[in-house]
């Protein structure tokens, strides 16, 4: 089980995790307070400052319509935050359910579900995501859902493995002896003890989801302009590659930092929650 105060304390002592935590926290602040912090509105057009390089008025420069890049990036952080959390929420939910059922009941249910995992792992997921988005249309909700539906396999394997080892333990036997039903044993006895690795993989999953969303938006299949996303700012960076380096450099750095932050936090959390792995 995850004990919050101890975990937080141990996290703060781990330099990698701490830096990840700070990055993620700053990102949250940026996203939540975007309307207050952003110097301009994200759709405010300034015809006198088209493709202006970074200067005092526009720290990160402006894009081809004269919109402030910094403000657009701040609003864009909301998109990547939302996509990351919702997509990983969906993936984790599916992964936990299928993994728990698979590991707890075993036998043919397990074989069927694990075959399904093999199948899903065989299909290049980025292709699958692109194809589905082409078919059902590109909205931010579709993107969240489809990223979630194509990235639950790792979680379900993790949960299954935990269930396989935990279901033979004494506390489960005790619960069964005292008359607890399957659902009760799965959700209130075993699952809380299997959550630590799930939590780590969810945080690492957010990083992956942020990368996928930005790639999709970059290809023009994700968040549609005028709504800003780091990916679609980079698209205009590509179109103006020869003149406006700031359109490519800053949003890319934002993606890199975000993904780095979640990865560091996730890895740090893994060290803290599972000290046995640390010396490996």
């Amino acid at each position, binding site marked *: 089980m995850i004990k919050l105060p101890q975990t937080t304390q141990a996290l703060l002592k781990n330099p990698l995790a701490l830096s990840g935590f700070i990055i993620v926290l700053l990102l949250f602040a940026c996203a939540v307070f975007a309307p207050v912090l952003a110097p301009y509105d994200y759709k405010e057009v300034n015809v006198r400052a088209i493709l202006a390089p970074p200067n005092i008025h526009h720290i990160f420069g402006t894009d081809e319509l004269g919109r402030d890049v910094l403000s657009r990036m701040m609003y864009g952080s909301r998109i990547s935050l939302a996509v990351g959390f919702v997509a990983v929420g969906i993936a984790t939910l599916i992964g936990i359910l299928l993994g728990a059922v698979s590991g707890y009941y075993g036998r043919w249910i397990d074989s069927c579900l694990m*075959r*399904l995992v*093999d*199948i*899903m*792992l*065989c*299909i*290049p*997921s*980025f*292709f*699958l995501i*692109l*194809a*589905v*988005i*082409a*078919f*059902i249309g590109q909205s931010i909700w579709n993107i969240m859902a489809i990223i979630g539906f194509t990235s639950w396999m790792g979680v379900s394997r993790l949960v299954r493995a935990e269930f396989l080892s935990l279901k033979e333990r004494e506390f489960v036997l005790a619960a069964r002896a005292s008359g607890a039903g399957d659902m009760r044993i799965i959700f209130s006895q075993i699952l809380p003890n299997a959550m630590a690795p799930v939590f780590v993989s969810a945080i690492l999953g957010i*990083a992956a989801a942020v*990368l996928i969303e*930005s*790639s999709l938006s*970059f*290809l*023009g*299949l994700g968040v549609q302009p005028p709504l800003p996303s780091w990916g679609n700012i*980079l698209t205009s*960076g*590509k179109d103006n*590659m*020869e003149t406006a*380096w700031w359109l*490519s*450099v800053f*949003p*890319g750095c934002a*993606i*890199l*930092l*975000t*993904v*780095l932050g979640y*990865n*560091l936090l996730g890895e740090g959390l893994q060290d803290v929650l599972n000290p046995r792995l640390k010396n*490996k």
Partner: protein
Amino acid sequence: MIIYLIKRLFAMVPVIIGVTLISFLIIHLAPGKPTDVMTELNPKITPEARARLEKYYGLDKPILVQYGLWLKRIALLDFGNSFSTDSRPVIDKIWDKKLPFPDRRLSVTILINLLSMLLIIAIAIPVGIYSATRPYSLGDRISTVCVFIGFATPTFWLSLLLMMLFSVKLDWLPISGLKSLNYATLGPWQQVLDKSMHLVLPVFVSAFGGIAGMSRYMRSSMIEAINNDYITTARAKGLTERAVIYKHALRNALLPLVTILGLSIPGLVGGSVIFETIFGIPGMGQLSYQAIMTRDYPVVMGILTISALLTMMGNMTADICYGLVDPRIRVK
């Protein structure tokens, strides 16, 4: 070994069925009928012609029968015709027999993926060995930092930055495509050189994420191997450290990498959409991007199915190789 092979081949059957079924169901996700794109754009179409088209695609039959028919067609590599104006068969677009072998879309993508896999192996294994034999040294720490940054770098952004630096600013490398305009006039060696210059950035970009991941795996796999008893034995025998590391530890550490390489295929294939689009490389990825943007469903489905089947074959080959090099696996 033969029994192991047969077992592996049989294990593939449900996966083939599943992969094709999922691909098939995705076609039916689209609102309306798949033929709507063809019929809507044509004002002259009569209800009879529409019914005939639906019958041609078997849309008037129950869904399981449709799946069976579709499976039969794709077994013969018939993925239908493209919805685009040329309405060529999908398979011709992917594997154009009129073009020379290396220029066909599928060969272009496979070539780049193979090259990047070689690059991954060539860089990741030495880095992994270095880090594992000197854990927590300065070099190991630097490589760990690089790995974290490598994991976090979006490939499309890296492509943009490298293009800006090497193609726009320094003008060392061509900016896009697979060949220069004057390719046909070049001598054979110059042609190879020209193509290599075009391939440098795409191959590097597609290998980038893999290098980070693989060197991490190599490091932990190597550390695990070094902690084994047989390494202590080898050292106790008085073998040189070189022989211990490269003969005894490395061979065992390489085993799990075969599987990891197999598992990394889907990522490489999916990534080809991104870098082929950015670098304008006429491969499967670019084709699928164009097909998706123009809602050319037969092409999208054909590519999805083919790439899934190829991925599966890649995994299968990795499994068989694993069985070949590690006798323990065959018994299980």
